């Protein structure tokens, strides 16, 4: 008996566990400094959030220990059941849920408040691994794709109904798992490009987005085309025309931009170019040029249909709602307040930070949700660039470690589950840190292991330790 346990302890991936412990402790200290109240100066004071966070952490470790003791083979065996139980919990919330802070995603059992939406990541990761690791499963068949899509979309829809938009969007990170398991690369790439263009066309002037598209197409053409000079000359003459014609007209005292917007001039000029290239592409059967033109034209269509939909169809209050949702309001006193304050907090940290408990921006409610969604502000302000980069490094290290663990699993179930864990952690980290520094839209999701709160911490602990247990019994 003793030898077996010994073996188990030895087989656990201690690098990952060490990273986990460091991140959790950083979280505890950050929560302490984010909501620090001099009248309750003890970090163990359970009337305050930092005291409670200590309890969540200890609870999380207990949970980890329990997971380590449960045999790893139950997960592939019971994967379908676990997934269904997860769905039932989400349904239960819709029926018995309690509203708390604008979303009705909480289940209440006496003093315990519990958010199944957060847990969904675990259920979906296990369910997906179960289905995709079946011997005859084929991701390139319609049946396979439909199965996988349903597995992800059903819980996402239920979570949307609970008004937890952020947690629903997170589930789309599983596309990384699908890519690893053989989904053609162009699908995730198209998805990412589409989302980026969508966001840019709301935030930016259309002409900048157009130039960006053109620039990217130019680079791709430069890589693929046999005649590099032709590409450069084409783009060069396009740019020259774009600049020179208005200049010449102005010299003739005709103001071109009095009658049209700059982007309209761009399109007017681009239309004959695209047409000519299309004729060439079809005549000479140049495949890459056809694809490139298709991408370029569909990007333009996307940009303008989003712009038209946004500016002409939506009413001002709907526009404001979307802008707030995406956190792209320029009014720093209005809905852009959060992001602006958060950027000021992080920016003011400088290289080495202001020091422990010395942050001013994150205290006194300048930054909202300072202990949950915007906890990274506290780190950025008090520990500066060094501290922030350390946290980012720890996450990167953890992700690479998890991928490594996933790849060494003998059974596909473990591999697929491992990539699921990595995808969830990655999307949470990227969007959460991104929104505090104005890179990604403000989607209210937590920073794994660090943000205040039991649901998030326990979910990620569970995700991680199930993988570690599988890894330990991987033979």
């Amino acid at each position, binding site marked *: 008996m003793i030898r077996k346990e010994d073996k188990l302890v030895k087989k656990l991936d201690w690098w990952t566990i060490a990273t986990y412990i460091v991140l959790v402790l950083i979280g505890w200290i950050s929560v302490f400094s984010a909501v620090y109240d001099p009248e309750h100066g003890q970090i163990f004071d359970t009337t305050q959030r930092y005291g409670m966070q200590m309890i969540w952490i200890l609870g999380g470790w207990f949970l980890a220990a329990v997971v380590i003791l449960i045999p790893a083979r139950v997960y592939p065996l019971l994967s379908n059941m676990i997934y269904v139980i997860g769905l039932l919990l989400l349904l239960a919330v819709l029926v018995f849920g309690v509203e708390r802070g604008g979303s009705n995603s909480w289940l209440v059992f006496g003093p315990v408040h519990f958010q199944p939406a957060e847990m969904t990541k675990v259920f979906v990761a296990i369910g997906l691994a179960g289905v995709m690791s079946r011997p005859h499963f084929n991701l390139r068949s319609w049946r396979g794709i439909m199965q996988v899509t349903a597995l992800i979309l059903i819980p996402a829809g239920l979570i949307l109904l609970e008004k937890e938009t952020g947690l629903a969007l997170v589930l789309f990170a599983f596309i*990384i798992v699908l890519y690893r398991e053989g989904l053609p690369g162009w699908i995730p790439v198209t998805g990412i490009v589409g989302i980026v263009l969508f966001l840019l066309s709301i935030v930016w002037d259309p002409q900048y987005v157009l130039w960006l598209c053109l620039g990217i197409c130019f680079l791709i053409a430069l890589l693929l085309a046999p005649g590099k000079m032709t590409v450069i000359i084409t783009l060069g003459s396009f740019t020259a025309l774009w600049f020179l014609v208005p200049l010449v007209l102005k010299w003739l005292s005709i103001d071109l931009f009095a009658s049209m917007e700059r982007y309209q001039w761009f399109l007017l000029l681009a239309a004959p170019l695209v047409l000519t290239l299309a004729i060439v592409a079809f005549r000479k059967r140049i495949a890459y040029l056809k694809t490139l033109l298709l991408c370029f034209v569909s990007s333009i269509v996307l940009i303008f249909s989003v712009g038209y939909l946004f500016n002409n169809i939506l009413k001002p209050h709907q526009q404001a709602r979307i802008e707030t949702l995406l956190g792209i309001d320029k009014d720093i006193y209005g809905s852009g307040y959060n992001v602006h304050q958060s950027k000021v907090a992080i920016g003011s940290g400088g290289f080495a930070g202001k020091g422990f408990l010395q942050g001013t921006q994150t205290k006194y409610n300048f930054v909202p949700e300072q202990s949950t969604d915007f906890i990274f502000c506290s780190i950025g302000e008090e520990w500066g660039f060094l501290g922030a980069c350390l946290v980012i490094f720890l996450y*990167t290290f953890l992700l690479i470690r998890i991928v490594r663990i996933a790849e060494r699993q003998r059974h596909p179930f473990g591999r697929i589950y491992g990539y699921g864990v990595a995808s969830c952690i990655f999307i949470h980290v990227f969007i959460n840190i991104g929104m505090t520094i104005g890179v990604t839209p403000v989607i209210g999701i937590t920073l794994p292991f660090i943000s205040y709160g039991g649901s998030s911490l326990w979910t990620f602990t569970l995700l991680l330790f199930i993988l570690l247990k599988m890894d330990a019994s991987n033979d």
Partner: protein
Amino acid sequence: MSAGGSIMENRARQRSIIVAFFIICMIILAGRLVFLQLINKEYKITASNNVLRYEIIYPSRGLIYDRNGNTMVENQFAYDILITPRELVSFDTTAFCSIFNLDRERLEQMLEEVHSRRRTIGYQSVIFLRQVSNQEYTRFLEKSYKFQGFSVQTRSVRSYPSEICGNLPGYIIEADQSFLDSNPEYRPGDYIGRTGLEEFYEKWLRGEKGYSIFLRDVHNRIKSSYEDGAYDKTAVPGKDMVTTIDLDLQRFGEELMRNKVGSVVALDPSNGEVLTLITSTGLSSQYLTNFGSYYPQVIADPLKPLFNRAIMSAYPPGSVFKLVNGLIGLQEGVLKPETRYSCKMGYHAGSLTVGCHSHPSPINLVQSVMMSCNAYYCNVLRSILDNPAYGSIGESMNKWQEYVKSFGFGTRLGIDIPGELSGSLPGTALYDKIYGAGRWRSLTVISLSIGQGEIGATPLQLANLAAIMANRGHYYTPHLVREIREEPSFSPRVERHQVMVAPENFEVIVEGMYQAVNAPAGSGATARLAAIPDVVLCGKTGTAQNPHGEDNSVFICFAPKDDPKIAVAVYIEQGGFGASQAAPVASLLVEKYLTGEIHPSRQWLYERTLEQDLLTRHLQ
């Protein structure tokens, strides 16, 4: 096996791409941090404890002018005392109390309240004392160095150069939670227009808030403007507005209505512009500047100053409504100018009697208007309702209702202040409900003939009737705003409405109104008191029964008879005969508007009207 091998190889490539993707995304984050924390100065704050301080710049609200360019509503500065709990140090409370005339306990209570909220307030400042007086403000400024943690915020509030009925402009008050919930563009602490023009034209009047951002240190000293004001937003002042009100006339009317309860509305019949709109007793404009603090007092007033009688009160119109019945009779052909009816101190049909005063009998239509004979109109209404051209009384009643509705009764006229009510206009449906279908006759509803019973009209609708009489058959939507400056696209929503009675039928009724005022003494004319030298005034008195006390006094009129310039309705609650109270007020108003002064021969009437105090009748 080779195929399997290539798949494995492919998978290895996918692993590298995923890891590379993770690393690139993390580098993007780190790169952004380099920009934010190391390169960009925008977010760099030198002293460790500096924080941004937002100072809201409240826009000045648009001014309101009368038709002649006189200012009705303007702005003045008000001073709020702010408190910043984080910077508060112990201070001389006695001195503080003496500056603001506070008692010690109250101050301690207020400080306690702020203390309990200090966590949510954080580094921000909140309003501690609202709208302190000018003297208090200057006294505070002298000694402000003693009170660290207190500061002053200047805000613009409304002021009224001449005292006017406050129900017309409305008041400004801090937005309450329910308003904020339905109007997300407002924030707590914002002020909004309520009632009157301020509410209706809020969109134009309010302007747009701005702010300036300052850097400040721990001692709340403002160090500099943040980024040289690059992120500041200037406030956009509200738009100025030109109303159709004649301020002098409005004030003159209010003077006449002092100590009386009721309403005066004067219109320009040629375009629907409202010249005066008075409710009495109304809200004194001196309460409006700091309305919040007077609110309990205003609410408790038994004379209900917030109730705008001119547009909200549905009164029985009384005898002025005979004009409408007469016109309908003519249009329907059941009444001719030469039709004569006799009156023996009233109208008698079986056990039913509608009383009348003593006057010659029988009389024709013109005389009936002049003398305001009740019996005559009982006959007229019966001939309308019992007209054999319609199959049943239900049909003829509906026709009658349609006619009356075309005069603007029983509907909202669409004046541009909130709260207008439609009054009440009965029809077949109502009487069927009260008495049962087929169980009522023209005699059952006979009080309608003299403007009593189920009909209710607002003073605005009565003034509109006067305008219809003046125009001989049409009216324009009454409105209060003529122009919004710098907003050329704005124009008042005015429609021309034609009533269902042909213009030629008006002449005989107008002649009656002329006779009522201008017939020689002894002829039985009811409103001779209203006659004005050199002005041809046409009018109609009304005395409406009031179950709560003395009769209500009503008068509507227009002048001059040809090419009328003004149409007026006056309604005085418990004023007694129409001729005794309402007619003098209306005719003095018309005289003032058309001649600019009161003729010496009518000074006694002016003085008598000013002295009349009818409030005791209401306060019993």
